[in-house]
């Protein structure tokens, strides 16, 4: 079981890192070239804003899933830290809820893919279903990552409630 969880997490992490490197570097190249072209040749690429907009959801969802793997999404733990033994169960139930919610959202996104397949971007003609599928895949990965965290939550030792500098996992403003 532990090996399977490690394998799944490893594969998701690898896929997200790869997607992140590709989307960041392609967007960087397109926008840099476009600014250069505008000032050096007085022209610009017609699809220079459309392609980054298409890549951005993949960049976001890769980051969202990686943040979930690294425990970087901010959580308030003031109350649960005082719960003693019940803490693990409360956290496990919360994580299970997250997994269930994202699985449900992925399921809801499925019919949206069919509807948005007919909507095409004005310049490149890319179907809208590509972006919906990105969110659907992201939701599925979030559900899997959340499920994979439950065994470690249940087996983790209790935190003492006097270390109040450990109240948050990480954040960004």
């Amino acid at each position, binding site marked *: 079981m532990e090996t399977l969880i490690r394998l799944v997490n490893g594969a998701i992490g690898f896929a*997200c*890192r790869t997607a*992140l*490197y590709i989307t*960041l570097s392609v*967007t*960087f190249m397109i*926008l*840099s070239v*476009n*600014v250069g072209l505008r000032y050096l040749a007085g022209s610009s690429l017609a699809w220079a*804003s459309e392609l*980054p*907009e298409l890549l*951005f*959801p993949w*960049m*976001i*969802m*890769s*980051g*969202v*899933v*990686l*943040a979930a793997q690294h425990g*970087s*999404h*901010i*959580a*308030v*733990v*003031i*109350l*649960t830290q005082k719960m003693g033994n019940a803490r693990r169960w409360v*956290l496990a*139930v*919360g994580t299970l*809820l*997250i997994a269930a*919610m994202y699985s*449900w*959202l992925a399921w*809801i*996104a499925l*019919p*949206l893919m069919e509807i948005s397949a007919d909507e095409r971007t004005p310049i490149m003609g890319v179907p809208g279903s590509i*972006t*919906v599928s*990105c*969110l659907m895949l992201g939701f599925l990965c979030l559900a899997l990552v959340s499920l994979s965290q439950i065994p470690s939550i249940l087996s983790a030792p209790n935190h003492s409630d006097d270390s*109040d*500098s*450990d*109240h*948050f*996992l*990480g*954040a*960004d*403003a």
Partner: protein
Amino acid sequence: MTILIIGLFILAALISIPIAHSLVLASVIGLWVAGRVPVDLAIQQMISQTQSFPLIAIPFFMMTGALMVSGRLGQSLVNLLTMMIGRVHGGPAQVGVLSSTIFGGVSGSAVADASAIGSMLIPWLKKLGYPPAFAAGTLAAAATIDILIPPSIPMIVYALVSGASIGALFVAGILPGLLMCAGFMLVCYVQGRRRNFPRDTTPFVWREFFIQLTQAGPALAMPVLIIVFLRFGIATPTEVSVMSTLYALLVSSLVYHDLTLQKLKHAAIEAGISTGVVLLIIMASSVIGWIVTYERIPEAFTAFATETLKSPWLIILAMNLIMLATGMFIDLPAAVLLLTPMFVPLAAAVGMDNIQLGIMMIVNLSIGLYHPPIGTTLFITSTIAKVRIGDVVMELIPFYIVAIGLLLGFAYLPWLTIY
């Protein structure tokens, strides 16, 4: 439906479900239970946020910050500032405040600032003999200046919802950021003098000063370049963010000679994760924002506030109190997304410009970053200093007084933010 969503959000957050997931959970369950709008709407709203061209600036500003501060720049900046102001009362703590302000010019995130500058300066301040709680408090408060100095991620988010110009917001944030810096430096000076904090005793050497100035120069130039590019319409904010990353790559490889593939990969992952954290909150908040607008709450709120409070100065005071309270319980980007649709019509009703409202909102919400219970920079610096939050909060009291004093100025004196 809105009350149900707020209740569900609080419940989910209290059982330690991360804030972003709590927002998604509350809005999705709220929509499903109310049954007035299909749940698909949540996904459509989330998708629309991922297709925003201005938001593409966020990962690149994050990456610029990660590239610039992880190298030799951070240390050069601290060395330069120590040589300049280390000898005055509270000088080493003032170095922290000034470093955060200058770092604000290369990064748009207070959290990145708190962890980067905090991990560099807190151990140094402790070694000099500063009380760890004071060191942590100073750096927690100073890190929030970062989001007033351009580039600023919360300003991009505010601009997206309010329709304000990103360039105008960036320019408007400079004076408030510098005033906040001066105010916090004054706190360090007064405390340093009153409590006789140690000062730097290293002799001043002009040659060394110029070496450090050359090394720190690229960081000092970056906010100027960003403002020039935006103000003169040379590039869009998204293009400026990409150019700032290009600048950071060039500086790192040509000036500091510390650009490696490992550093580049690390910066990309750091930027990706930070973007994921912020964007999931933005996506989730947009669903709640849509529901709030659908239920016509901003109109009802504006009518209620103008009819009951009547006087513009009372309305502005009430707006500030609501923003301060919200910032203490909700993460900054989420608070910006939820409050902006409510306050833009109200501000217009009392004749307040939406640029001034944006700066006022960001200063208000930034106080929540170093105030419990959701004080992100407070928790980061306390963890680095290994001190109790309660002790740091006591040291932060003078910083709160200065910040609230300046906030009143930004709220009632438009010339401080619109020029």
